[in-house]
């Protein structure tokens, strides 16, 4: 366990070593089983689960000729843009509100009751209302993504601010820190690990919510591809779109992780 963590953190030069040798091996085994089950062994029919060949053909089709109204690049870019936009806006507002509530008991008293009331509503439950308000276009999706990512950002930032070490705050105070210096030099850095925990949860929520929202109704995007492929009974395309979501989710999470390490150099080594 400890060794796995160490192996994952190593590889400073160049790309980080994400996959260990054992991990790669088990991945290859799954691929092999897949090929066998859908091919020579014929355990799963092509209408239920695609063979590697179907998968490949769907990939070629959407990349070259397009599917559900656009090529892969168009569809992916459309979804990615919404997620990034929703995530950035949600993080900024969420971390901001979390800091405000953590720093000002008055603000917390004022806002927290409303927040606690809205918080249990699952993001997906907002989709119908969002469509009524904003239609099937991007605005509705951005709203739902924003809500989904906003909640964990607020909660974790607030928790982080509340958990600041009192003694360090006192130490900063007796050495002359003003209120704004306390916030900048103590509260924010101390809360940063929790803030990033919140951001990671937010990012996850963004992708979940986006795909669900696009499944309900969209003109473009990876969810639209999934929905269309389902209606066309095209398992190859369904699986291909799912893999795309997985790669996008992992990629954006990796980017956030890189940002996190940059933001907190003291947590290294």
């Amino acid at each position, binding site marked *: 366990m400890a060794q796995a963590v160490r192996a994952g953190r190593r590889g400073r030069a160049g790309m980080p070593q994400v996959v260990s040798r054992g991990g790669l091996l088990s991945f290859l085994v799954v691929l092999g089983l897949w090929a066998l089950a859908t091919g020579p062994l014929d355990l799963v029919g092509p209408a239920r689960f695609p063979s590697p060949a179907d998968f490949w053909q769907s990939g070629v089709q959407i990349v070259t000729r397009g599917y559900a109204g656009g090529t892969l690049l168009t569809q992916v870019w459309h979804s990615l843009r919404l997620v990034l936009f929703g995530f950035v806006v949600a993080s900024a507002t969420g971390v901001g509100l979390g800091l405000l509530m953590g720093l000002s008991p008055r603000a917390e008293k004022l806002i927290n009751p409303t927040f606690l009331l809205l918080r249990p509503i699952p993001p997906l439950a907002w989709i119908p209302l969002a469509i009524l308000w904003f239609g099937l276009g991007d605005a509705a999706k951005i709203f739902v993504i924003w809500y989904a990512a906003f909640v964990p950002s607020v909660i974790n930032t607030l928790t982080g601010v509340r958990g600041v070490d009192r003694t360090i705050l*006192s130490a900063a*105070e*007796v050495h002359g820190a003003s209120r704004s210096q306390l916030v900048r*030099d103590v509260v924010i850095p101390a809360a940063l690990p929790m803030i990033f925990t919140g951001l990671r949860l937010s990012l996850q929520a963004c992708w979940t919510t986006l795909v669900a929202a696009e499944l309900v109704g969209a003109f473009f995007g990876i969810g639209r591809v999934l929905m269309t492929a389902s209606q066309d009974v095209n398992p190859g395309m369904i699986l291909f779109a799912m893999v795309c979501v997985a790669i996008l989710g992992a990629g954006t999470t990796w980017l956030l992780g890189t940002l996190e390490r940059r933001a907190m150099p*003291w947590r290294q080594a």
Partner: protein
Amino acid sequence: MISPSTATSGPDIAFRKVSKVYGNAEGGFVALDKVDLTVSRHEFVAIVGPSGCGKTTLMRMAAGLDFPTSGDVLVRDRQVEGPGPDRAVVFQQFALMPWKTVRDNIGFGLKCRGAAPSEIKQVTDRYITMMRLQGHESAFPHQLSGGMQQRVAIARSYAVDPDVLLMDEPFGALDAQTRLVMQEELVQLSRVNPRTVVFITHSVEEAVFLADRIVVMGRNPGRIVEIIDVKSLRLSERWDELPIEEVMDLESFTHMRTRVWKLLKDTKRSTAA
């Protein structure tokens, strides 16, 4: 170096009938019970006493981080209302900022005061050398040993050059040798730049070597048992002219040490009963 106003020697810190009760009024725990203590300007007062007798509480009140349930805490005749630039604290738990390097931790107070970067650099360089932290300027606290962290915490407080230095077991995490060096350094520093020091320690030897007066505290409730004058002995026996290890061998020193030890032992016995 010494401004005219510091020539007067009125009390720098005064605790007047200070009590501290934790919890509510009925079932409260009396951490301090009517403590009276004055510390003169440029005096070095050491506080010794069993764990939990309220040493840290007393110091936090002088720092303005805690307030008495009853009684008054005065610094230069003014009621303490909060932390101020005239007082710096070395905390028992170091309380370094994990996200700042050694240099930035030491320079923090100066930065807060809006000192110029060149001045911050110059002052931090001086204390990095004094605390033997060369080569670790860019390290983060968790990369240092406990003793090194403690030296960073001490340097951080020295760097703001406060009138009043409040030190809570500042040498507790140091090895015996470094401890001796730090004790001598502190004496040296007080000579070059006299200031008022309140110094909490569990080491009786340290208290006898450093202090002008030793405050012996007892617990349940936290109170002052006795205040011992060491300064007159130090001056008459000329401890200041000898290196620390020789002072600790002098008969006058060991006598004083034994006296404080006995007092401490008695307070423990009386609280156990």
